[in-house]
């Protein structure tokens, strides 16, 4: 049962990812990304990580895709509905191949461990997040904050020069 579900979800994940790259319409690409991300949430569900699955739906499926669409709609996509061809695809291919090699090597060296899935309760998860992993957690949020402020500064800088 779980293998069957995994294969379905994997097809959706990879198909969505492929759709993001192949489709010529930016908004369709965002939708394919949504399919892929929600399918990943399903994979988490198979692994008994309900909280992670819900976070995936809330953050990626909801917020990130909505912000992406918001940005797309603020640009002039109605006039230019197609992605312009640029010369970056070899770079992208090299980056993707590199990530693939690293992931493959990691699996090759470590092997896929047959650990029994256990689902930590919500309180266990939050306890470990805010005690043992508190500093990485805070650093991650700090990185996001820095990115946010940086984006505002970059946007405002263009405004001042005018």
């Amino acid at each position, binding site marked *: *049962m779980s293998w069957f579900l995994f294969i379905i979800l994997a097809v959706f994940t990879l198909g969505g990812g492929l759709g993001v790259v192949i489709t010529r319409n930016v*908004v369709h690409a965002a*939708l394919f990304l949504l399919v892929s991300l929600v399918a990943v949430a399903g994979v988490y569900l*198979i692994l*008994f990580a309900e909280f992670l699955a*819900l976070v995936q*739906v809330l953050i990626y*499926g909801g*917020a990130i895709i909505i912000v992406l669409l918001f940005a797309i709609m603020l640009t002039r996509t109605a006039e230019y509905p197609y992605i312009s061809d640029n010369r970056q695809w070899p770079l992208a291919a090299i980056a993707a191949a590199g990530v693939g090699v690293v992931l493959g090597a990691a699996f090759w060296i470590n092997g896929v461990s047959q650990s029994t899935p256990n689902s930590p309760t919500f309180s266990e998860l939050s306890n470990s997040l805010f005690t043992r992993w508190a500093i990485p957690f805070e650093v991650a949020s700090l990185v996001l904050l820095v990115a946010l402020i940086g984006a505002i500064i970059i946007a405002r800088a263009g405004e001042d020069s005018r």
Partner: protein
Amino acid sequence: MPPVGWYQIFWMVVGLLAMFTALATVVLSLVWLERKTLGRLQLRLGPTRTGPMGLLQPVADAVKLILKEDIIPDSSDKAIFWVAPVIVVVSAFMIWVTIPGSEGLVLRNLELGLFYITAFAVLGILGLVLAGWGSANKYGVLGGLRSAAQLISYEIPVIMVVVSVGMLAQSLDLRVIVANQAQIPYALILPLGLVVFFIAGLAEVGRTPFDIYHAESEVVGGPFVEYSGAHWSVFFLAEYINTFAIAALVALLFLGGWSWPWQSAALSWLPALPPVAWLGPLLSVIWFLIKVYAVILVVFWIRGTFPRLRIDQLMAFAWKVMVPLSFYSIVITALYLFYDWPAWTLTLMSLAGLAVVGYLVYRRMMAPVRRVAEVKARQAAQLAERRAAREAAARQGSR
């Protein structure tokens, strides 16, 4: 995952069908109630012709909507135009999987129920944005942008208040949250949470003071501008289901859900009468529905009395009032829990926060009035001065 047999799948399907039917009935009742309430508020009668007291009016409305021609604009993005209503209505129904109607009346109780609800409520926003974009209409796009901005902003206070309620109950399981309110409802312990959740919830479902993204006089229906017939009625259905969901959540999180006053005393003699053992659960469902419909009536009352906000006022209200207030509620809840203070301190702290912010909002709202009064006073002073000068000149001339 526990082994899933055909038996469970069969019962899941039956449960889902029962849920759809119940929600459709609820939507019909809400449409009737809204038309009647608004009518009474505006000194009208509301529907009276179709059936007794106009009770068949929502049925007539539904039949009319479905029989209407379903127009799909030529230049629209067909796939997105079709997918958007599906996303909206699926997320609206998905929420109800875990909202309990009473202790046993729930399709699938989840340990992370509240979190699940917030996660799937966000997916609904996506449908609105896509609907606006896919219909290839500038009012649609404007409405879509507005809905994205508004709903994402008001999502934050909703989630933060949910977090503070979860902290109070030490659980995100809705049944546990209700069980914790058997003695005192959280509305009395954390009134701030109730106010913030209710206002932000109204904004989340786009009810009247916050219906900027589908305001008829500004963006002609916003994301729904190109939708008609059955497609439009799907959005309509989702809006009413979401309104009902927000009311149900207010009742569950703050008004004590299905627990009624002196419940323990009542329960102690109820099972003593053997033939009415099912009376307890039935009473709790009825009590829950009474609470939910009371909240719904407040929602309709607000719709009948409040004018619509402007978009910049709306966003300023979200980020300058609602978000800080919701963070304040988390901080005071944490203080209360950490130092183990008595419950009335939390009530006091949240009331103090509400009073301060309410006064500030009132001052801000009254600013134009004050300015007009200032200008008028200055004009009056100038006038008096000029008259005095003229009189003085006249006196000098006559001398």
